[in-house]
């Protein structure tokens, strides 16, 4: 396998009581690669993402970050290893400005005597730099998130996930709630991350998304690996067939 491997899951299974959500699933991800994960509802996509981010512990199997075996006890652990998750419900506070959201929980501070105070100037500067790096256009870093469009909010959520030099970003249906004209901007953003050397896993139902941004696509069916292919060696119809459990 390639030397660029940043994340690998080997025969991961996850049981909830008598229900088998994942059965011996393998996944690997290379540096700067965009992997699409497809599958019908209940195929185990979200469970797999939650295992990778440390929200669920796998019942069996193991995870490797940079080829080293790791045990994740919480999303904090995976964050420390450079993996960030962009949540489907965005997880932003609408009443706070963009910069505050991006740095929420990790605010830059400066020490004055024994006290730590927020460093507003530094936060603003870091926000502007980061937004510029990702080519995200907003009126100002001080704009409140509730004043933004759905696509801009998604962009802020992605900016938040990548603000601390994430190496791997997981996105669960990043375009699901967006107006058609905003989908393209979010897809551009994903391609931008790729250019910056970030590896991305995208869960999506939309073939347009998969075929615009992904290098490789893998399909889960009823909690198992069903099919996988480089994007250039497959077609929309074939991938749609995989989702429905059909293979030639």
């Amino acid at each position, binding site marked *: 396998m390639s030397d660029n491997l940043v994340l690998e899951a080997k025969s991961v299974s996850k049981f909830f009581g008598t229900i088998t959500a994942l059965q011996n699933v393998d996944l690997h991800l290379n540096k700067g690669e965009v992997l699409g994960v497809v599958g019908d509802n209940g195929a185990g996509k979200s469970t797999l993402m939650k295992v990778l981010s440390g929200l669920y512990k796998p019942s069996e199997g193991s995870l490797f970050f940079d080829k080293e075996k790791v045990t994740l006890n919480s999303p904090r652990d995976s*964050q420390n290893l450079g993996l960030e998750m962009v949540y489907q419900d965005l997880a932003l506070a609408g*009443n*706070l400005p963009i910069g505050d959201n991006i740095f*929420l929980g990790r*605010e830059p501070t400066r020490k004055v005597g024994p006290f730590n*105070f927020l460093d507003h100037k530094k936060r603003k500067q870091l926000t502007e730099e980061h937004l510029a790096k990702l080519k995200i256009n907003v009126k100002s870093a001080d704009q409140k998130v509730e004043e933004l469009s759905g696509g801009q909010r998604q962009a802020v959520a992605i900016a938040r996930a990548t603000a601390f030099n994430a190496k791997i970003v997981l996105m669960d249906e990043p375009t699901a709630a967006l107006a058609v004209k905003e989908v393209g901007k979010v897809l551009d953003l994903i391609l931008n991350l790729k250019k910056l050397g970030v590896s991305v896993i995208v869960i999506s139902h939309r073939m347009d998304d998969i075929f615009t941004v992904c290098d490789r696509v893998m399909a889960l069916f009823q909690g198992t690996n069903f099919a996988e292919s480089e994007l250039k060696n497959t077609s929309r119809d074939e991938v749609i067939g995989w989702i429905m459990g059909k293979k030639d």
Partner: protein
Amino acid sequence: MDHGEKRLMDKSQESLFVRLIPFFERYGILLLILIMIAVLHLLQPDVFLSWRNVTNIFKQVSWQSMLALGVFMVIVTAGIDLSVGSIIMLSLMGLAIASKAGMPWYVVMLVAPAIGFLCGMFNGIGITLLRMPHPFIMTLGTLYIFRGIGNLISGGVPITGFAEQIRVIGNGKIKLDVIFGEGAREYIPTSLILMIVIFFIFWIFLNHTRIGKWIYAIGGNPGAARAAGINVDRILIVVYTLCGFLAGIGGLILAGRTNSAYPNAGLQSELDAIAAVIIGGASFFGGRGTVLGVFAGVMIMGILRNGLNLMNVSVFWQQVLIGSIIILAVYIDVLRRQIATRT
């Protein structure tokens, strides 16, 4: 690109009225206070702006402002604290009993804030660890519990007479002989200084510390706060504890001002506190509001009560007016939001 151009066009088309909205949002309430002062000065030119009356207003609002400031932080987290009126009474009674037991004044002085602190922490722990469905229920319960305990420990009778050091806090005067000459009657109430210092400290806390930022984030979207790794329960306990602590300081100021602890102390003052916070522009749904707004809300309530008293308006009419102002203040906010979302 085309987006940027479109936005530029929108900006030039915005009417003057719309562009004034942010200005009113920030300073409208101070404008309202200035108007009230001007009107009352015209109606009562000899009395209203006299040194005696103005200091009287500040002395009156100083203890109430402590409740409002605490309740404000709770409301920012989208919570509510109905028990602050009872906390002020219980901490006042605790202080009185400590004083009667002959404890030194510096211990007596600490008793009220300490009791408030513990009461607030009890609220916070109940809301988070006991998983009460809403802070309303927990603090409604403690509204009865704290006042009940206050009456139990005091036997339901007033206790009067505190040490001079306690009285200074609520009733002390900082003479201004330096400015107005020897023996002048002008002075600054100690409680006003205390109020300004505490409001300033909490302004710093809410606007310039991480916990302050997290309090707003929790009010905006508790799920986002959790996803950001913030321990929401711990922050809520801090907020309710500080709210109780401020009510305890309110109890200390009230003790100094009235020189007595009485069973009806702080009765319904939790509602005045909520009213001041709402008039001051905080959102009842959390995440919105400023410390300066709370100060303004408290002043509006204080000036209104004082002005109506000066003009001999009956207490009953005062109730009707204050209620109307609450509804009007919130309705103006609703209108403002409608206009803001339309652009």
